[in-house]
């Protein structure tokens, strides 16, 4: 069984160390949720895993089946099974989603119909993906478009950076159901970053991890969300 294994990950942005030794294991088919206060390093983890410019890994590894993703180019990380769904997906004028998906490895003969079918599942009008990548889409539409890309590409692991923000209740439900189905359909491992509990009302997590000041400070089952709801992050906050 595949697993995404992050060990001792330290990351700096500019001169500041944001991640100070993250350890995390996500087995295939499971849903792991990372929660934490603003500035704790949640989004940095997502970006560092996918090699975003400006994020410098100073030590640690992130492996899928023994291959360290952090030594690979961003496209090779995706080809090796890790896909990031962004908090703020970028507009790329002139590039059509299907052309991008084919260049990313999707089957050219079926990609158009698969995109349309996946749009239906997350409540997105298919014609929004017939133009250019994320151009003229609202924030919530872009989030759903990211899920469509994921569903077509079927990565072994998906990292979701605040996929819930900007989605109304109905859209959130549709996205959560799609993710839950992905864990069954192709054994997709899900690492969802959020600071809202409402995603968890729709998406049943296997485990919850609390991140504070660049480290995982607590891990537990779904019941951890209730503790956070009641007491906030303060009991978990690290003192430097």
């Amino acid at each position, binding site marked *: 069984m595949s697993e995404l294994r992050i060990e001792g990950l330290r990351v700096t942005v500019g001169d500041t160390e944001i991640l100070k030794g993250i350890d995390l294991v996500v087995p295939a088919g499971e849903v792991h949720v990372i929660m934490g206060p603003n500035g704790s390093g949640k989004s940095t983890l997502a970006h560092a895993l996918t090699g975003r410019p400006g994020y410098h890994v100073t030590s640690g590894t992130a492996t899928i089946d023994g291959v360290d993703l952090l030594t690979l180019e961003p*496209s090779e990380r995706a080809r090796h099974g890790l896909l990031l769904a962004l908090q703020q997906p970028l507009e*790329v004028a002139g*590039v059509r989603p299907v052309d*991008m*998906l084919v*260049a990313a490895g999707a089957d050219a003969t079926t990609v158009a119909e698969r995109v349309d079918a996946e749009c239906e599942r997350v409540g997105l009008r298919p014609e929004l993906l017939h133009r250019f990548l994320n151009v003229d889409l609202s924030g919530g539409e872009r989030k759903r478009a990211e899920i469509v890309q994921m569903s077509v590409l079927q990565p072994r692991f998906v990292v979701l950076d605040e996929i819930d923000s900007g989605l109304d209740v109905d859209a959130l439900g549709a996205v959560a159901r799609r993710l839950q189905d992905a864990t069954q359909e192709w054994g997709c491992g899900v690492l969802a970053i959020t600071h809202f509990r409402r995603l968890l009302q729709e998406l049943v997590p296997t485990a919850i991890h609390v991140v504070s000041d660049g480290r995982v400070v607590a891990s537990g089952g779904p019941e951890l969300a209730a503790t956070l709801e009641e007491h906030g992050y303060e009991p978990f906050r690290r003192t430097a």
Partner: protein
Amino acid sequence: MVSPLHCHWPMPPMTTFLDAASQRISTHSSDGDRQAFFDAFTSVGLPTTSDEVWRYAPLHDFQLDTFVDRPADAALAPDAAEDVVRRDAAVVLTVVDGVLTDVSGEVAGVTVSTRAPGADLGDRSYVERYRADAFALLNAALCPATIVLTIDAHTQVEKPIVIIHRTSAASSFANVRIDLGSSSSATVVECWFGGSDALVVPVSEYTLGANANLQLSTYQRLSTTAWHVARTTALIERDARVQQSVIGLGGHYDRARNDAEFVGTGATNELHTTFLGSGTQVHDFRTHQFHRVGRTNSQLLSKGAVADESRSVYTGLIEIENGARRTDARQTNHNLLLSPHAHADTVPNLDIRENDVVCAHASSVGPLDAMQRWYLESRGVSRDDAERLMVQGFFNEMTAVMPPSIAALVDRDVADALARTTGRTS
């Protein structure tokens, strides 16, 4: 239909270009004012880089005498890509070195003819209009004939009218006039093929009667050893509209000056210019939007990319006459740098003699957006493919408004050129 000038000059190899030209003109002295145009050319003289409008041209390696005629390839094979452009055409004009050699297809209200070059355009004579333009003057002196395409008033031509230009001689001077009668509409595609080691100097003029509508695509895909010095002028009457796309991919030096003159209220010109530079090419695009009357509109969009060691310059002048109130003139110029050794200049100029106008320009020069590229890469798209998608995307906005046949050819040529470029730099 074939002009008697379509003979290749039987000159000994040591003949100079000017001697050959002079002799050519004297044997056809009855044909218009060729000598007057030639005299005007001689008195203007060839440009030098100290002329502001020529400062970006690699004139140090330009010698007219290298373009003295050579034996023409009598059986000039058509470029296979011609078939792509001919597809779905209503009428196809084949022009070889400026000579109209064939017209196929027939549409009521559309006529094709030839006449002596150098006719007036609007209220200005040829010499007056092009008095500072040595190459346009040389064109009128040496072109075989003016090819005139006339669309009668109230005629609507649904399918494109295609003009195929083949260039095989050492120098090639095509002169084209397109006249649209009032309330007519047409789509015209002009495409240049060939041009190996040649000087190619086309002059095209377009007149639009009231309420006429012309969609025009001009595609230069000459050899990268050609010198291409082109000039187009649109004279636009009341409520008429020209949508013009000018694409330059070929040429060692590719100069395209595209002017519009607005002489009736409500006249509109939407001009898109596009180039892709590679190797050591220079693309030199110039525009002059001359708003002589009020309530006229010009929308200019120039998008070009330069790779390898290529260079580009875009110089756009918006001129608004005193009294041309409520004129709306906008210029946008985006340049993509695909190599650290490539260079792009952008020079917007405004000459506005009226206050009650809207006039705007915006420009940018820079490499591909690194974050957008990372976004594509993070989906699993390789860096080369991401850059190819982004550069083709950069041109999509331009090809989207062209007839499908020419858009397909431009897309294909851009992809081929990019593949060669990537191959050189990686």
